């Protein structure tokens, strides 16, 4: 598809066009917490920000809300349950200036929520189909980013409808889907020099990102070998077992479903909430048994899931896009890059099948 060019002077008119059919959101500085970036509606007349690292929370909330009502129910006259589905919202959402890692994040979760005909989550799919993403390539990755080593990259296109590259006073727009092509239709075509300039930028930015993780031994290592690494006993000492890393993560997707009823039990709703593997409650059985009763087992689970179980089941794909949010926001600075390298390092394993 043909690249387009958009002068930042004409941005307001372009955004106004987008607003006709979409509610446009963009990363903005939080009013209360000055270093925080949040997804907010980009109001008419407001200019989007181009100089920022990324939002503190990933945009997964747009497609997979932290709390989502799945249906309502009430007791009918004959005592039977009457279920009332939730009407899908008709509005379309457009995420403007979404970072490539977050485009990849939603694309990764498509694979989880919509695996096949049997596993085709309507709540996810519906909102995903109504959410368009106009990406902004990263020209200045921050020191905690490692997207280039997590099957992603600062100019990655996966999951996005349009990828924009900031050329200074102008933006180069590359449509990536039919929806994206419709969005940019009407903008002037880009000159070959602009496309070359964007390619050059991509090369410079990628080259500026130093290699930080190694996974070759981890890929070869047996599951039980990685599972039984003595390292887990040490890394968990600092972990406070909060949910920060999972909640800010653009690929963490675990949830819990609860029915909430009125005190008389006559009416209620079924709600899906984000859940997190760091919480003991996550795996607590009705019997009282907890297969991950110890903190070490819970800490291990998160990293094993992302860098061992998912790659094994999904052909080398990892459950991580290298956005660095958990690195920046972990209250005790547990750095996933260190953990990956420790999982990759040759180490003496404990005997197999040890009880945790």
């Amino acid at each position, binding site marked *: 598809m043909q690249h387009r060019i958009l002068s930042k002077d004409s941005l307001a008119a372009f955004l106004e066009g987008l607003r006709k059919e979409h509610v446009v959101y963009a990363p903005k500085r939080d009013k209360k917490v000055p270093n925080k970036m949040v997804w907010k509606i980009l109001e008419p007349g407001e200019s989007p920000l181009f100089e920022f690292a990324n939002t503190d929370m990933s945009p997964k909330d747009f497609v997979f809300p932290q709390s989502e009502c799945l249906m309502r129910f009430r007791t009918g006259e004959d005592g039977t349950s009457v279920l009332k589905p939730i009407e899908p919202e008709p509005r379309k959402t457009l995420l403007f200036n979404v970072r490539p890692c977050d485009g990849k994040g939603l694309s990764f979760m498509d694979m989880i929520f919509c695996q096949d005909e049997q596993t085709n989550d309507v709540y996810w799919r519906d909102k995903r189909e109504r959410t368009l993403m106009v990406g902004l390539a990263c020209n200045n*990755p921050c020191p905690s980013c490692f997207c280039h080593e997590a099957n992603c990259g600062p100019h990655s296109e996966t999951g996005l409808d349009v990828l924009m590259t900031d050329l200074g006073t102008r933006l180069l727009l590359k449509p990536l889907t039919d929806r994206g092509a419709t969005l940019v239709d009407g903008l002037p075509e880009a000159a070959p020099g602009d496309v070359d300039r964007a390619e050059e930028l991509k090369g410079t930015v990628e080259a500026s990102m130093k290699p930080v993780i190694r996974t070759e031994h981890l890929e070869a290592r047996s599951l039980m070998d990685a599972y039984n690494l003595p390292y887990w006993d040490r890394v968990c000492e600092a972990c406070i077992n909060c949910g920060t890393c999972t909640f800010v993560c653009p690929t963490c997707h675990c949830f819990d479903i609860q029915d*909430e009823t009125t005190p008389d039990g006559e009416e209620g709703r079924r709600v899906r909430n984000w859940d997190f593997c760091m919480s003991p409650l996550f795996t607590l059985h009705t019997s009282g048994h907890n297969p991950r009763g110890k903190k070490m087992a819970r800490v291990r689970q998160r990293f094993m899931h992302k860098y061992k179980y998912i790659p094994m089941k999904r052909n080398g794909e990892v459950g991580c896009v290298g956005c660095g949010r958990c690195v920046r926001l972990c209250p005790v600075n547990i750095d996933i890059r260190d953990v990956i390298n420790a999982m990759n390092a040759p180490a003496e394993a404990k005997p197999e099948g040890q009880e945790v």
Partner: protein
Amino acid sequence: MMKTRTEAIRAAARTLLEEGRVDAVIGYVQGTIPLRAQPFVAYTPEECDRFIWSSFCGGNLASIASGRTDRVAVVAQGCVSRNLNGLVHENRIQRENLYIIGVPCIGMLDQRKVEAKLFGRNIEFLKRDPEEDLGEIVVGGCNAMGECYEEVIKRRDVKRDNCYTCMHRNPVGADTVVVEPVSETAGGDINAVATPWMRFDADRRWEEFAKNFEDCIRCYACRDVCPLCYCTTCFVDESNPQWCGKTQDSADVQTFHILRAFHCAGRCTDCGACESACPQGIKMRRLTSMLEKDVRTLWGHEPGMDSTTKPPLSTYRPDDPEDHFK
């Protein structure tokens, strides 16, 4: 880094392990990115060489010591030492199993405030981190194009909120203190933190409270980093019966914060770890400041000044003031 303190902590920790006086030392090591420190448990004298002290040791190591049954030494500034005293009183740690390596503290810095000052720029290094309260830090970094910067920032402009009003910067009840004491208070008026609440009527208080916690994502980092929160199962994690809803409904979010604050009333040392830990930057102290002021005013109690005094809300006296029951 803070060289004198770092070296003194390493030496003290090393000696304790070499002489077999403790089984482990809990301290901080350099974070993987600037403006961060990572809690670390050292078991050998060699591992002690990794310990550091910096302006970004904003967690609370008493939480890591809490519940341990081995003999541990903990690197502790004023607030953390008071939490350790409290934990001894509450039988979470046996005093004979505890060794407090005290660090006179000049106040921790708030990485969010530093980041806000340098918004849009990468922070790649902390070049200078002086051991003077009114000193200046130097931070800097480069962008992908190789353009670099350095910025000098006054410590007093970016301190954590709680460190401006600290009442006990020197460790309390420490077994050793690694450097000369600093001035006991930070200078700010701790009672002033709660002043806005005094002016508000009940409706306004509720409004401000609701606004303060509206961004909470219920990750529970504030609870999990807090040395006062050691319940085996927190009330929000109880599933049978389930006391608190699991959704983002404001009633559930607010229930958590109110109940947690009341559980901590009269025990909080204002260490600020909850605010440092919060990924959303929520000001937890807006709530605790008023509770602690009430405890100071009504009972004249300062938590953790020794390991024998019962916190006022854990005890009853016939002459307890009752004016607040209205």
